[in-house]
């Protein structure tokens, strides 16, 4: 691990000010991704700013019926929070589908948003990678592509975003709260993560000098019709090949409002609000679900090793929409898929 200095920030303003003075510094929260990447020499900060003392652990109700989750609330704290379980069960379910209890106890909400791809070429400094070393090339293209993108990839990068939590937050239209040296701003969740394009080194639209301080969720009517369906190479403690966060509001057998986001298929949680809007009013039945799947995957492209993901995603979307419509969300404990 490259050597670095250590500073503990006591306030948000303090943290942001220290970062402004140290261009190679990084914030450290739970450490479950950053410390790992530092061990592999993929991340090489010269200074670590420990933000664990900042007052950002609370999960609080907002006057408009929404919730605000502090950036330092652990993944476990969010998943088992009574308000989250009752009003945003899709989020709780997605978090419990990811990682292990040990990692969820340490990992934070802000850190989950900022975790980096698990592309094995990104993790291996002996191979070229445009995300790790801009301009060096992409060893994944033409390499082993089983875990890679089928949507939104570029000729510079085919990596996927690894988070489960973020797939649910995308479906729920969350808002990311960030603070910079001069001001605070909100970023709509759909604008937070980006596609690789020509700059795969940029995972998201957070500015270099900003800190994520929290996530806001608006009240919704999806608690009765939602599911998080995750398909992976083993039944627990593995990253998604394909995952689907689905939520809907149904009246008289018809979809009133539809949300669907995919994980494991692109450089960011994949959502297409135009497709969702198109099927508002459609009957909540298999024919509709198959059409939604076709539309979402219309531009999907395999790279050889991941061709199977297109059919897997199509079937997962139909299955997830069926689960959501019938009010029988996927259990994250009993692994059989109904």
């Amino acid at each position: 691990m490259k050597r670095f200095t250590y500073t503990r920030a006591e306030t948000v303003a303090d943290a942001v000010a220290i970062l402004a003075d140290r261009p190679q510094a990084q914030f450290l929260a739970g450490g479950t991704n950053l410390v790992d990447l530092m061990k592999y020499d993929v991340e090489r900060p010269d200074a670590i700013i420990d933000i664990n003392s900042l007052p950002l652990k609370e999960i609080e109700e907002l006057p408009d019926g929404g919730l605000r989750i502090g950036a330092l609330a652990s993944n476990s704290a969010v998943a088992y929070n009574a308000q989250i379980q009752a009003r945003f069960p899709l989020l709780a379910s997605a978090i419990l589908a990811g990682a292990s209890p040990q990692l969820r106890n340490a990992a934070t909400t802000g850190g989950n948003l900022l975790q980096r791809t698990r592309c094995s070429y990104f993790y291996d400094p002996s191979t070229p990678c445009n995300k790790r070393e801009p301009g060096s090339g992409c060893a994944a293209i033409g390499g082993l592509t089983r875990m890679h993108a089928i949507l939104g990839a570029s000729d510079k990068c085919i990596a996927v975003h690894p988070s489960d939590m973020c797939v649910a937050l995308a479906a729920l239209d969350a808002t990311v709260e960030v603070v910079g040296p001069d001001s605070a701003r909100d970023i709509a969740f759909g604008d937070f993560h980006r596609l690789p394009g020509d700059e795969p080194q940029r995972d998201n639209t957070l500015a270099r000098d900003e800190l994520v301080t929290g996530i806001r969720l608006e009240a919704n009517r999806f608690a009765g019709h939602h599911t998080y369906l995750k398909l992976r190479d083993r039944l627990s403690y593995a990253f998604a090949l394909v995952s689907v966060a689905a939520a809907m509001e149904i009246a008289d057998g018809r979809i009133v409002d539809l949300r669907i986001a995919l994980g494991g298929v692109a450089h960011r949680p994949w959502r297409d609000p135009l497709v969702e809007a198109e099927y508002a009013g459609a009957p909540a039945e298999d024919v509709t679900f198959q059409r939604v799947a076709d539309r979402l995957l219309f531009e999907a492209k395999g790279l050889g090793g991941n061709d199977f993901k297109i059919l897997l995603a199509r079937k997962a979307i139909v299955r997830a929409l069926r689960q959501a419509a019938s009010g029988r969300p996927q259990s994250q404990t009993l692994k059989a898929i109904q």
Partner: protein
Amino acid sequence: MDTALEDRFPTCPLSLTINGKPYTLDVHPWTTLLDLLRSDLELTGTKKGCDHGQCGACTVLIEGQRMNACLKLAVTLEGAAITTVEGLGTPEEMHPVQKAFVEHDAFQCGYCTPGQICSTIGLLNEGHASTREDIRELMSGNLCRCGAYTNIADAIEEVLADRASYREAAE
């Protein structure tokens, strides 16, 4: 690493409690809790498996919560109370979880066992497991290359059942 380079990165003072005993230390910021325990303090009960948060062999309890010691920089744990397998029981007076692991032969080589046991205690503290399926899912962060999973689940199931009957008797 030569001394001049090390001097550019001074150590940081750190006070924490391990198995009930207070420690006042000076650590380099890159020292993980796992390396602090094993190399500096010679508490080698906690094991290093993958060193990347993928196997759970290094699981310890930080403020009662199970976490991977390999991914925690020690310097971030100022004031924390840590429990390792050394703090749970003795050969004469084993912790109920240790006893259940022995009775159910819940290990073969034993390398993952300290992590399995600390993880089980974390699982009990969390209180989200009541069925065997819950146990299997909520212990998935601890790998066992000998494949003793069936017996590990048996041991934990027994501890859970004992706890339930203990609680019923108390009510």
